């Protein structure tokens, strides 16, 4: 083996193996996936907290009577949240294209779709700030306000993180070109965005449709 005093008699040469492989072959893909599992558990805890608070409040959400306009059944508005949901879902298209172009090492395509993805991302961040108004409560009004703001806020953090990753990708690719490692990293970042959008479908249903239809 590696014992200093004995010389190995047989060897297996691995020098011809590739230095990058995509998806589940790559350690970084796994690292990213564990991170996403952790974040999913965080959202799971927040969902549990949401239902726990639901059992404490009747009616749910509680009527807003401490300021005008008084709202007796303050279920969240759907307009802006739904627009944002659509923005996020449509953003999957440039993101998938970014993923595919990175795999083909098509630098031009990568540049285009990095910028387009970032544009969608920024749009979603701006809309998210307006979404908070749709809840009709502030975070410190009551426990319902606290948990809904926290769910929206946690997801907003992911939107910010993703924007930072996109900006990093753009700066790197425009400055240094698309190398093999960067191309691979972009495919992992794409997985992160798939998760960010996917988890939002569930959270949207919970926060916006839940109080209305459940």
């Amino acid at each position, binding site marked *: 083996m590696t014992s200093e005093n004995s*010389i190995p008699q*047989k060897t297996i040469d691995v020098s011809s*193996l590739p230095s990058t*492989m995509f998806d589940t072959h*790559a*350690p970084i893909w796994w690292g990213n996936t564990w991170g996403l599992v*952790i974040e999913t558990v965080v959202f799971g805890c927040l969902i549990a*907290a949401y239902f726990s608070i639901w059992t404490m409040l009747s009616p749910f959400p509680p009527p807003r009577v401490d300021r005008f306009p008084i709202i007796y059944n303050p279920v969240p508005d759907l307009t802006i949240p739904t627009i944002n949901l659509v923005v996020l879902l449509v953003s999957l298209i440039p993101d998938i294209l970014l993923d595919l172009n990175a795999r083909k090492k098509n630098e031009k395509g990568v540049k285009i779709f990095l910028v387009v993805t970032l544009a969608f991302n920024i749009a979603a961040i701006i809309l998210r700030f307006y979404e908070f108004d749709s809840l009709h409560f502030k*975070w410190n009004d009551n426990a319902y306000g606290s948990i809904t703001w926290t769910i929206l806020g946690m997801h907003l953090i992911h939107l910010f993180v993703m924007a*930072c990753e996109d900006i990093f990708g753009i700066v790197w690719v425009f400055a240094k070109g698309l190398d093999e490692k960067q191309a691979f990293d972009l495919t992992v970042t794409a997985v992160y965005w798939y998760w960010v959008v996917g988890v939002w479908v569930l959270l949207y249903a919970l926060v916006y449709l839940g109080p209305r239809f459940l």
Partner: protein
Amino acid sequence: MAENEQKPKEEKDEKQSPILTPETIEHERRELEKTWFEPRGVIGWLSNTNHKTIGLRIICTAFVFFGLGGILALLMRIQLAFPENNFLGPDLYNQFFTTHGSTMMFLFAVPVMEGMGIYLVPLMVGTRNVAFPRLNAFGYFVYLIGGILLYAGLILNIGPDTGWFSYVPLAGPEFSPGKRVDVWSQMITLTEIAALVGAVEILTTVFKQRAPGMSLNRIPLFVWAMVVTSFMVIFAMPAVMTSSSMLSMDRLTNVSTHFFNQAEGGDPILYQHLFWFFGHPEVYIIFIPATGFISMILVTFTRRKTFGYTALVLSMIATGFIGFGVWVHHMFTTPLPQLGQGIFTAASMMIVIPNGVQIFCWLAMLWSGKWNLKTPLVFVLGFFAIFIIGGLTGVMLASVPLDLQLHDTFFVVAHLHYVLIGGAVFPLFGAIYYWFPKWTGRMLSEKAGIINFWLLFIGFNLVFFPMHILGLNGMTRRVYTYIPETGWGELNFLATVGAFIIGVSVLSFIGNVLYSLKNGLVAGDNPWGADTLEWATSSPPPAYNFQYIPIVQGRHAIWERTEDAPVITGLNVKKREALATTIHDAAPEHKYELQSDSIYPFLLALATGGTFIGVIFHPIAIPIGGVLSVLALFGWFWSNSLAHIRSTHEEVEKDPQNPEPSLKPVEAKI
């Protein structure tokens, strides 16, 4: 696996790989030394990303906190030695027991187990470093900052005083004004980040970087233990991070959310659920690595192959799963539906089954092996005695009527110390005696080891056995004194005497370590005649662990190695390259360049730590800390990407014939 063993030979025939000459070996060794050189100086110390250095740092830091937590315990025992004692006032006593419990759980037990994993797992699976070396360094610094925060709080009289689980409403803004609980909750968040980082490291390293031939059914049991533990960390720790963050938000004057404020629709019991959804798996997060130590120590010191490998692995996995289904047994005194009580009682009793399977497998190894009765084995024998008593009182406490009677009494204190000290600290001491030669190249003294063991064993039972009786007699936890008429004085005095014997035992251990570092017997590569790969390299191992990645031919890699076992060549010695292998069979798949040393993990830890500490005082810390963290991350990734293209360019320049790396799956080639 027979296929795998054949494959390397075929390839060798095809390629006619040259047999290594002493000159090539020496040349490559020198190159590896250069490539893996560990940076020196202060900046170097802060930039180092070698898993062995980081692992030892975590272990040493955890033992420092173990010592501090132990001193607090001694002070508490002095206070309780006599009825109506005034050695510590009630306020200091509250701070001490909270800090003691928080230290032992968050700053000692979890980190020390992860530190062992971070040091040993890459060696045991036969790779050069953990999968994400920079993240690893970041984890250590965040943990250190969290620990310093707790003790800075204690020194500045803002030590937390609401118990290691800080229940609301006591820990809420109404009943605990001031910053004490905030210190606690931010310490929790920081140390949990570190634990999560460690879990990601270990899982990825085990999944993707095992030496060729180490299929899933050949992974050493300690590595399996760390895999199960890491899964549990990933699913449990986010819950306590959520609860501690919610608690912080409820408390901060500029935020003032109402998660646990019943008047505004919050739910105090939610806090308990979130905390114990983490808190009970936490016990197994501490205990399962210890079962890994035991399995490894027993193989070496009974000189036989593992008895019931598959049963042991499945037991650990089953414990991992059931461990998530028992948390409500900590909450039997809260309003629960009877069905809920029944389910959680049943689950709590059920967890005895996989643990029982493990114990019987180990007993079978003891029964049928040839004992080599050295200190590590002695500690494992001590484990059996103490842990089984703790396990039995655990089954008792799983019963609701008894639990209602004993909840929050010293009976529970006795139980949890029997389980945690018996189940984790005894095997941990055994593990330190076992692996110390690997870490330092020198053996710990056997004589001092036996003294250490007996003092610990006797002292431990003197402290904690009487607590069973005290608890049954009604003595409650977390109360700083009692009146003479209770008749608890004698047993408490006995417990205090025992605590000091434990103190002497720990001192003898520290003395042994300090003495043996310089004067211990020189260990050699494999002083115990052990079976796993960490013993196949020098003691202490070189920075790159193995000059040539070994091929694994059986569960007991060293014992089952044949004379003509091949080794892996062809990894680039001029960059920090590791071999990525397939998840199931560990067949070679691709080469993987590990990250280089960097100061950015330290800077990111400062930014993260600063954010969490700053937010205790004002929420403005979040945007400021966020921006600083993003800057640190940019530096981290930019420098990493730069290093990567540089090393790739060098490689291409050196070898212009090098073909474009193909992305075909490698199985086709071998």
